[in-house]
């Protein structure tokens, strides 16, 4: 089973490949399409999927690993 999860700048996580989306109790969540966008701003009305709300709230996030700045 290979799949990729890609953070898109200021937007969702895009998931591609062979994956299954499940609730914690193991029930499948129908992805609806081959490539999906998972919300990472926390404000989507159709969680766990992105619905574009991140743009309304000016969500900012990088596309790579963040490294904490030294204090």
């Amino acid at each position, binding site marked *: 089973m290979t799949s990729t999860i890609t953070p898109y700048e200021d937007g969702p996580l*895009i998931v591609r490949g062979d994956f299954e989306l499940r609730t914690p109790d193991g029930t499948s969540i129908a992805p609806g399409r081959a490539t999906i966008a998972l919300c990472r701003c926390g404000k989507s009305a159709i969680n766990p999927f992105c619905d574009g709300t991140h743009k309304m709230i000016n969500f900012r996030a990088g596309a790579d690993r963040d490294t904490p700045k030294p204090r």
Partner: protein
Amino acid sequence: MVESGDRRYGPAPLPQPRGPVSAALHDALTSAPHDLPADLASEFDGVDPIDDEDLQLTLFLCYELHYRGWRGVDDRWEWQPSLIALRSRAEAVFEAAVRVLAGPQPPLLDGRMASALAAVVAADDGPALSAYLQRRATHEQFREFVMHRSIYHLREADPHSWALPRLGGPAKAALVEIQVDEYGGGRLDRMHAELFRVTLERLGLDTGYGAYLDAVPAVTLAGNNLMSLFGLHRRLRGALLGHLAAYEMTSSLPNRRYGRGLRRLGLDEAATRFYDEHVEADAVHEQIAAHDMCGGLVRVEPHLAADVLFGASAALALDRLFAAWTLNSWQAGRSSLRPHGPGAPITLHVDELHRATGSETASLMTGLAC
């Protein structure tokens, strides 16, 4: 010239002409391919090409030959040289007008295509048709909106598919990833065009391909012709991808509003499915379109960056005109469609338009068209 009893997929019957050029072309198309009069294009009357009913219908008549064709029209017209010559003349004035409307493009900072596209989209401040449809539109107004949109949605994604053979590499992969979803992953009942047909049905509207061609005004035809113009010229492939990106990037939020509007009017889940699906699908598509497709294109062909931004701006500009037209008509108590019946003139009262663009429209403006 295949005649089929199934009107769902076209070819549509020829629409009624709207002026001397479309009348001559319409007449010619009903007989075997032959040369059109060479000076036909000089009969366009020089009004704003985007509002010119005769010019926009002429373009639509020419372009449709490359999609589903016209019922009863010889398929060989598609490449008839004098028809192509007429089309080129109409395209030249149309493209020039669209370039003026789209305005100058912002510079691309260190090849950051996605941010440049986001800036174009954020700068779009047209009248918020979607907010009106969500909160205020009557049942009849919503039906009108759907009739306008049926010209595109019943062949949704088709114009952008013209880009496929013109691309290679990452941009092509990204476009395929989007188009596969638009075409329902190859499942007919999930194809976006088919979801739209259900919405038409639920609203008691005609689900035939091109059924409302006679009803829609020049501005609606222009939006469709823009996609065909970009799609049928390899030179404009950057603009075609920018156009698709702009559509995807301004879709999720308005589609949520359209769905809510239909629910407010008492329509069921089958009717809203097209819009609900687009909220979710286009949140995916917009990322792929901006970063992978347009970003991928300009990494390989950096000189196309300005075209991509032009295509995006043009898409939004024509959509703004459509929104203004529709809202102005409704605020003046008129239909946004052409009067029914062959040859019925459409009259636009300029003073009325100005009155309608006053306070009412201003209160409907939002920062984003999406």
